[in-house]
């Protein structure tokens, strides 16, 4: 776990550095990408926030069991707006995964309660 946290910290630092570097405007012309990101944000503070969100998302993905190397690619693939959303809501956003086990879990729980309260005795044999 300590190793993972170190990896995350180092990659996060790299992202911070990268995030700040990419904002240098190329001589005179405003590219479509620059135009769109300028529209969505104002100034360097937003760049720093985006870099922090990226490091945050990266760390959260790793702590949720994503392979650190994959987590780096995945955090890099998100836009600034997506990063901000995921950084804040990682544990609340819908995660499509079918949840079939949850249903089985509920069945088990209900049977367990019935067993404990003495309504049924199906687990006696085990």
């Amino acid at each position, binding site marked *: 776990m300590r190793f993972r946290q170190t990896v995350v910290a180092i990659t996060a630092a790299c992202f911070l550095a990268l995030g700040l570097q990419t904002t240098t405007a190329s001589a005179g012309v405003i590219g479509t990408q620059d135009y769109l990101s300028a529209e969505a944000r104002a100034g360097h503070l937003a760049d720093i926030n985006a870099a922090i969100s990226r490091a945050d998302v990266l760390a959260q993905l790793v702590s949720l069991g994503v392979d650190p190397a994959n987590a780096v690619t*995945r955090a890099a693939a998100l836009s600034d707006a997506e990063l901000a959303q995921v950084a804040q809501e990682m544990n609340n*956003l819908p995660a499509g*995964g079918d949840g079939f086990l949850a249903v089985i879990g509920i069945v088990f729980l209900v049977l367990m309660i019935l067993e404990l309260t003495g309504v049924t005795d199906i687990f006696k044999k085990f």
Partner: protein
Amino acid sequence: MLPISSRSSSRLVVAALSALVGATALSGCTNRLPALPEDPRRELTGVPFFPQTIHQCGPAALATVLGATGVTTTPEQLSPLVYIPGRRGSLQVEMLAAARSKGRLAFVLEPRFADLQAELAAGNPLLVLQDLGALGIRRWHFAVVVGFDPDQDVLILRSGTERRRLERREQFLHTWKAGEYWAAVLTRPDQPPATATGSSFIRALTATERYLATESISGGNAVALARWPADPLVLLANGNQAYAAGQLATAISRYRSLLAIEPTHLAGRNNLANALLDAGCPRQALAQAEQSASLLPADSPLAAAVNDTLAKARAADANASPSTCSAE
């Protein structure tokens, strides 16, 4: 009072519970659905199918929609890009990001059933987020809508382990509502979805740019210009592309079309000034650069570029030799 043995009463309880749970888990199957033979007139029969393994409906649904756009991939290959073990599922934004990384444009639709129908009619299957839970327990699920039969009012989906799942519209809308009617469509860079606007298309293209070959980007820009010739963002993107390719006359023409529609477009005017400078027209360039500098709001992230252009235009104008300008 009837004598009921404790054994039979416990059986009754278990039977009732099983029935309840069965109905919950298979809530989709409780309505009797019409037999609906596969028919290319109302469903996209060519969309591939990847049956999901446990919790992996995200990668399976993503492989399905990507496959429909010609990307050869499998849920196993996509799982490292979208699956989050600690959440036992995949997030919507990561599904879209993974699609972009495979060179496909991703569009989230307006939450309207009509838009879903429009995309189906255009041949685009839809990635949807459903809540298949019950009794207040959320059970998020990704599926792919491949068809709709208006006569029977039934949708056809690739879902979970079912290649051709039928759902009544009413039932589908109920499961679709919890995720705010979220639906996404993926397309090749030169095939805008039916419901796209010029602006949404250029935004999607730009967000995917780093994964695309130059020809794919220019192909997308060309298609956008043909379909939305008066959209400011489409004109800016096409002007920028022409400028980057050294096609100054085309770039100047696109920027001028843009400014005719939106005279206060800062980036358009700034870039026109740059194109005019490169075309050997410092006087005209300076006039444009002064205008864009006067449009500049305080603290604009574009200030560096605009001021840089103005400085270059002033220097060029001061050193101007007899004009070689051919742009009027």
